[in-house]
């Protein structure tokens, strides 16, 4: 690993979305993989005992800190692979005026996925947005679901089923349970 490469870290059972940075090496923390466990063990605070470091191509390193007895969900590996493959690296990566993908928005998305997905949920495809944000997409038969993390707005979700012509578009945070149910369809 390049010594100057920032490490983006996650903390199981951590306080909600704690973030910090230092000038020497930029570190950011979020509670990816933690929220669900934290809710399940509301009366406990367990220090993370192990971690897994995963490079996202050449774009940074995510360190996932796990609580004892937990393991990475099966959807993480395809999500990281999708990130590495699709990351918008340079300004104008879309051949127009796109901004580079920003790690803080990736972390926001990983937090949302951690909160909404089960260990055996289908992995979404991740696609960069031109504003530096990122979105997750699921597609199956006639249905599509998106969790969209724009750079300057709250996270949204979108669902469409061509067979039933059902269409939903709303804020993610206040509809997390609904999104959890939708993810289970894919």
């Amino acid at each position, binding site marked *: 690993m390049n010594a100057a490469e920032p490490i983006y870290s996650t903390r199981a059972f951590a306080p909600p979305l704690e973030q910090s940075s230092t000038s020497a090496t930029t570190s950011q923390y979020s509670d990816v993989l933690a929220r669900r466990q934290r809710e399940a063990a509301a009366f406990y605070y367990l220090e993370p005992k192990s971690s897994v470091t995963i490079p996202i191509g050449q774009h940074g390193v995510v360190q996932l800190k796990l609580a004892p007895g937990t393991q990475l969900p099966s959807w993480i590996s395809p999500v990281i692979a999708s990130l590495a*493959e*699709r*990351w*918008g690296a340079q300004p104008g*990566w*879309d*051949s*127009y*005026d*796109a901004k580079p993908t920003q790690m803080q928005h990736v972390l926001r998305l990983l937090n949302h996925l951690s909160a909404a997905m089960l260990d055996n949920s289908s992995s979404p*495809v991740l*696609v*960069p*947005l*031109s*504003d530096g944000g990122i*979105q997750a*997409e699921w*597609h*199956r*038969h006639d249905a*599509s679901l*998106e969790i*969209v993390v724009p750079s300057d707005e709250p996270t*949204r979700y*979108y669902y*469409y089923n*061509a067979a039933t012509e059902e*269409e939903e*578009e709303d804020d993610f945070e206040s509809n997390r349970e609904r999104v959890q149910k939708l993810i289970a369809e894919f």
Partner: protein
Amino acid sequence: MAEDTREDDPSIPNTDRLFRRVRENQLITLEDGSRRPSSAVFKAPEMSVNIESLMIAPGRPPQDTLTGHPGEYLTSIVAGKVRIHAGLRIVKDFGPEHDPAHGLVLGKKRESFANAMVREHQWIVPPPPVAVRKLL
């Protein structure tokens, strides 16, 4: 960034196609191996396009939009289908740094708009399909 308040340009006909380049990392592979643009392609706050009538006048084919952009694909949406979505305007955007046929779709693009464009879009230069491995 201050919002661009330019009004819709009525000299761009509703029947005009708007051409937009798509890169490999913006493609979604469907179950049959065909590929289509992600809705993210149609969410740029100021969405650059080439305007069909401005390409026809000097005799340029749509594929000319890809000149200088090897390895990219070209899709199209119809101006009239864009305008039915509230708040979206299409303007010409000439400038020395731009293609003479360059235009912008201005206004906030909601997910419902971007996904409607995914359903409506027509490839001009499509990506090759991906081989699908069938389970026995």
